[in-house]
């Protein structure tokens, strides 16, 4: 199916070196007109080579699309941006981890003190004096660690959230 002609290499060499048809033997020219494979080779190579030459000539006559210095500079810039993005990847992962830990701590804190929160809420609603119950809550020194933990979690969560959105 892809059988070659014994003269094909000779024809190809003549085409590549620009010697076709002037510098080839009459026998080779006569063969090429009769050989289907060689005819294909000559037709296509001549047309595509001419197309390449005309395209190159057109490109040379037009202003260049970009100077090589500009391309080199853009490539360096892209490399540096890629390096920075690569370096920032662990930081982003750490930020996501911090947010996850903070959220887990908040949930854990609420879960462990859920009974206390429920009972205190019930007591506060029974007394129907919300402001005084809040004062009583603050005044109760046994709740100090809980309040401190909630404040800490809220602060850390805010910082982690700020850092994760800061880059945008």
């Amino acid at each position: 199916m892809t059988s070659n002609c014994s003269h094909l290499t000779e024809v190809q060499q003549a085409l590549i070196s620009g010697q076709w048809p002037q510098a080839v033997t009459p026998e080779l020219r006569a063969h090429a007109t009769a050989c289907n494979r060689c005819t294909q080779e000559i037709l296509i190579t001549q047309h595509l080579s001419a197309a390449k030459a005309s395209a190159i000539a057109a490109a040379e006559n037009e202003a260049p699309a970009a100077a090589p210095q500009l391309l080199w500079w853009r490539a360096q810039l892209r490399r540096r941006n890629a390096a920075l993005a690569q370096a920032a990847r662990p930081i982003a992962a750490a930020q996501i981890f911090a947010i996850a830990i903070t959220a887990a701590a908040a949930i854990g804190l609420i879960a462990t003190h859920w009974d206390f929160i429920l009972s205190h809420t019930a007591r506060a609603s029974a007394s129907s004096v919300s402001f005084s119950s809040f004062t009583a809550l603050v005044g109760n020194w046994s709740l100090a660690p809980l309040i401190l933990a909630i404040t800490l979690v809220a602060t850390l969560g805010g910082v982690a959230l700020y850092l994760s959105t800061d880059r945008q």
Partner: protein
Amino acid sequence: MNWEDAIPAIAIAHAAPVAEPAMDSEQFAEFYQRTSHPLWAYLARTSGDPALADDLMQESYIRFLGAGFPGGGNVASRSYLFRIGTNLLRDHWRRKRTVPLEDLPPDRSAARDLTGHTDSRLTLTPALAKLRPRDRQLLWLAHAENYSHREIAEITGLAAPSIRLLLFRARRQMAKLLQQEGAKIS
């Protein structure tokens, strides 16, 4: 201070190491002078869109520099550049039409005449327009760039053994189309 120093180096020292550029700016300028026109001709003729060829050529060089190609001589660098261009062209076709490259209807990627040369307009351009994009690439690499089958396989990413058969088919179709357009060997 030259233009290379204008790039801020802030925080680069802390950044993870990335591939070194394939060549320095002077080597690149020389490489660009030698390869830009053939690459542009290849991209423009196989895509049929000079503006697209401009864009893809620039992107090809930027990716070439960013890839940290270890070298292997000018011939290898040139092949590597054509490979990048070929991949970008293929990505462009896939993204644009979201169908496999082989299923593209030939007339949708029709090449248009770039220079207005009579011979091109009358014979080559209509013939190229009727070929599949992949066939245009294969024929151009083989007959305009004179790449070997092995080099074409590296550039296009196709299997080396299939290049011979694919080229045979593309060549036969192209010759038939050219002859239909009235082309004769000289």
